[in-house]
């Protein structure tokens, strides 16, 4: 019975650890390359455009409606306790510490992660990666490094934008639709939102960006079996990156709460 149990569990567990190992090795290879090889600036700037600039609309809409709906929901609950003016503080802290980094990362995993794995996967199945290698260009240097650095730069900025837009949308909803006093709203928000909340959100964004880029690039680099394989790699990249963001978010929250404790202290 025990042997059968381990037999059934063994293969998927081994496959999972092998997958984790491959992603970690890719990450190690990428960081080694970042510190030891010249950066291809043109590719890096192209990726900044692809990841940062072209994600603007998605991030703005995500931030605006998250801030707006969170502001309304918080008001509906807090107003019963006569704490309507505390909505601003709750919206702001929640956006900084959780909502903006997680939701932005999920949107970026869907938009950018899918594009990365599809593009690299297509290059893999059409022998373009082999062509790179045959031309003495290491694929990690050429494909993964520019994407990683661009993600490291873009993600914190996108999350900062999401926080700002979310707070603005929450404020507009609170003032014009829920009749909250704007002065109290702002005063409470500024009083309860600390630098550490913003630092926590941006640090999470940085970590999530790295997770997304390695999971997506790894899926692309290991794609096989033609168009079906690329489709499968793309789907798995988005699903794995999204799950990784959600799971790591919990552990990062616990870790960052030690470094940057929540609340007014």
């Amino acid at each position: 019975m025990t042997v059968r149990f381990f037999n059934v569990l063994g293969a998927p567990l081994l496959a999972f650890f092998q997958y984790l190992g491959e992603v970690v090795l890719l990450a190690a290879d990428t960081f080694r390359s970042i510190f030891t090889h010249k950066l291809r600036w043109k590719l890096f700037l192209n990726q900044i455009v692809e990841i940062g600039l072209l994600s603007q609309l998605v991030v703005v809409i995500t931030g605006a409606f998250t801030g707006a709906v969170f502001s309304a929901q918080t008001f509906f609950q807090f107003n019963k306790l006569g704490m309507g003016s505390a909505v601003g503080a709750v919206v702001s802290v929640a956006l900084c510490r959780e909502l903006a980094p997680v939701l932005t990362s999920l949107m970026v995993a869907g938009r950018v992660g899918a594009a990365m794995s599809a593009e690299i996967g297509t290059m893999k199945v059409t022998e373009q990666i082999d062509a790179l290698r045959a031309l003495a260009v290491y694929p990690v240097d050429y494909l993964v490094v520019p994407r990683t650095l661009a993600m490291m730069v873009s993600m914190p900025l996108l999350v900062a934008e999401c926080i700002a837009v979310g707070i603005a949308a929450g404020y507009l909803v609170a003032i014009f639709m829920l009749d909250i006093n704007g002065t109290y709203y702002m005063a409470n928000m500024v009083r309860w939102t600390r630098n550490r909340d913003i630092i926590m959100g941006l640090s999470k964004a940085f970590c999530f960006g790295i997770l997304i880029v390695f999971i997506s690039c790894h899926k692309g680099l290991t794609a096989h079996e033609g168009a079906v394989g690329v489709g499968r790699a793309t789907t798995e990249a988005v699903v794995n990156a999204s799950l990784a963001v959600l799971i790591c978010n919990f552990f990062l929250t616990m870790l960052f709460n030690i470094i940057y404790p929540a609340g007014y202290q």
Partner: protein
Amino acid sequence: MIAVRALAKKIGQQEILRGVDLEVRTGETLAIIGRSGGGKSVLLKHLVGLMEPDAGEIWIEGQNIIGMNERQLGTIRKKVGILFQGGALFDSMTVEENIAFPLHEAGERDPNVLRAKVTEMLDVMEMEGEQAKMPVSLSGGMKKRVGLARSIIRRPSCVLYDEPTSGLDPVVADSINRLIRRLQQRFGITSIVVTHDMKSAFDVADRIAYLHEGRIYFHGTSVDLQQSSDPLIQDFLLGRSDGQRGHRVES
């Protein structure tokens, strides 16, 4: 220049190469022929380190490339160009960018130098004025020519051709064969051509190797090959399946 010793490769449960021994001399053109799925392309990919064998050695200009990591292989790959079956052009780049890619990666940034070299390569390939086209708008033969231009622009000492004439009409296939010959004569390039197109093999090769069931079954000049009375080779040259041969013997 290139020596392969007891090369073996298994993919899944299938033994693709079962101890290949091969030597290619500097400046010659060797054609590797064999049936489809017989491991010719796999052998070719081993020669530039794109695949790792289970056993054996590959010596290129006195260096055994087995066990080298990707970065160490970079030095070898600068000496050995490869033309992939479908060209393997970078589909996000124009013809000009594709051809200039190896020079750009080698640090050449002067646009005038790059443009001049690309133009020279396109002249050699008889594709003048096609610089701005994207790979998607090229025919199969043009893709192979651009792929070839890209692999020889850095003047490698050896070029590997993976099925250079497959999927092309006879006229375009002939022009590719002439191109391979011309490159050998003009630049003194050592060439290894993997093909199952016998006309192409006879047109371009100084020597021919027949890969059968994972081993080099025959190795010699095209005259030796044509004069061979070995039934297996005769079947391959005449395009006869086993069933046909049996039928003829019976009748």
